[in-house]
């Protein structure tokens, strides 16, 4: 069995991801269609929330990816800082815009859902606020990558920012909790308490979450490939200039 660090070689990564990507993308597409169609067309309305309950099929999975996307960037950053595998740093860079988009989707769907339910588009509820802060962290991270010219320097700086940012994101989460007890309902889902939400809603939601995870993975692979190619091109051009 080969070590997973073999995939830290850019060429090996490109070859393998090229093989995996079509399947992953197809799977993600199928799951997304099945989950959303199921959720949108074939679930009943909630007796309290009416048809707005259908929004959770977008809201919960995107929120899931928004948080876990940052977590993935944190792990990738640590791998880069400790083992110096370039692919890892580039994967973190590739994941950031996806995470940011997911955060926007979670915020948007949350606001649209909140309007009829809470009577307001935006409330300074701890969860909403935390997501807004998370979005700012994503923006800063992306901006720092874009601003630093040297690739290795940028990888180092953004990795450390990701580390420090993670600590402060957690801090902000608790600070915000202290600051305002919110309107938001508790996590409506957890794996061991499936009866929180009736099965009719739960199953399609699981499919949607799986679909978003698959979509995230496919996009990360695709974007990492692009980053590797961009990086190789810059390296080749730099070498050409020097000789």
């Amino acid at each position, binding site marked *: 069995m080969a070590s997973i660090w073999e995939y830290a070689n850019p060429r090996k990564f490109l070859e393998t991801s090229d093989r995996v990507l079509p399947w992953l993308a197809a799977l993600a597409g199928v799951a997304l269609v099945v989950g959303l169609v199921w959720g949108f067309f074939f679930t009943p309305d909630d007796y309290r929330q009416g048809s707005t309950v259908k929004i959770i099929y977008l809201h919960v999975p995107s929120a899931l990816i928004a948080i876990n996307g940052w977590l993935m960037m944190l792990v990738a950053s640590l791998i880069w800082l400790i083992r110096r595998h370039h692919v890892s740093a580039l994967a973190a860079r590739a994941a950031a815009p996806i995470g940011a988009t997911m955060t926007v989707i979670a915020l948007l769907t949350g606001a649209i859902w909140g309007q009829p339910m809470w009577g307001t588009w935006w409330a300074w509820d701890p969860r909403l606020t935390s997501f807004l802060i998370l979005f700012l962290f994503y923006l800063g991270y992306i901006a720092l990558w874009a601003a630093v010219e040297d690739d290795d320097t940028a990888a180092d700086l953004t990795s450390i920012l990701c580390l420090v940012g993670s600590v402060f994101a957690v801090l902000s989460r608790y600070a*915000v909790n202290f600051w305002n007890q919110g309107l938001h309902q508790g996590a409506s889902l957890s794996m061991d308490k499936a009866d929180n939400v009736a099965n009719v809603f739960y199953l399609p939601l699981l499919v949607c979450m799986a679909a978003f995870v698959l979509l995230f993975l496919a996009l990360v692979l695709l974007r990492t490939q692009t980053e590797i190619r961009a990086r190789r091109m810059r390296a080749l051009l730099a070498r050409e200039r020097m000789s």
Partner: protein
Amino acid sequence: MIALLMRDLRLAVRAGGGFGLGLAFFLIVVALVPFSVGPETALLARIAPGVLWLGALLACLLSLDRILALDWEDGSLDLLATAPIPLEGIVSVKALAHWITTALPLVIAAPVLGVLLSLPAQGYLWLIVSLLVGTPALSVIGTFGAALTVGIKRGGLLLSLLVLPLYVPVLIFGAEVARRGAEGQAVQVHLLLLGAITCGAMALLPFASAAVLRVNLR
């Protein structure tokens, strides 16, 4: 270390920008608030702690890029990095110098500006205490941001974008202490949490700042 601190203080005094600009900015921000929300005393008194905290935070932010950028431009940072003091010590001293030249005058000026916003009498003590406890964290976090952006031309805006989200917990607890103080509620828990953040930031962030600076000096 003391030599470096004295030099930074002397430079701040001679260059003129250190003490004056942040203070003037603080004054202007606070003076503009009544124009934007109306002169009603009750409203001003209610929002005064928050406005003063936000103003102090923004005034701090304004001067962050001076912490390291000047030393970067004239090559001093290279030379400091080869000096006998570890880089962690250097960034800590830099943060301290920033706090003395920028944050401390703000703390002293805050009660005066509190009068402008008709801050209730019982609020002054906790306003000053919360600023004294909270602003060191602002300086240390800001130094980290300055170290991140030191090699970037016109990095000022990026610096704000990076630092502001990091300021959130400090602002929440700091303003909360000041608000509770002004309203005569208990402040202990929030003050302790604010102090914990400051201590944690002062203990750990210099390592991150030094690591980042080493990368930028490469």
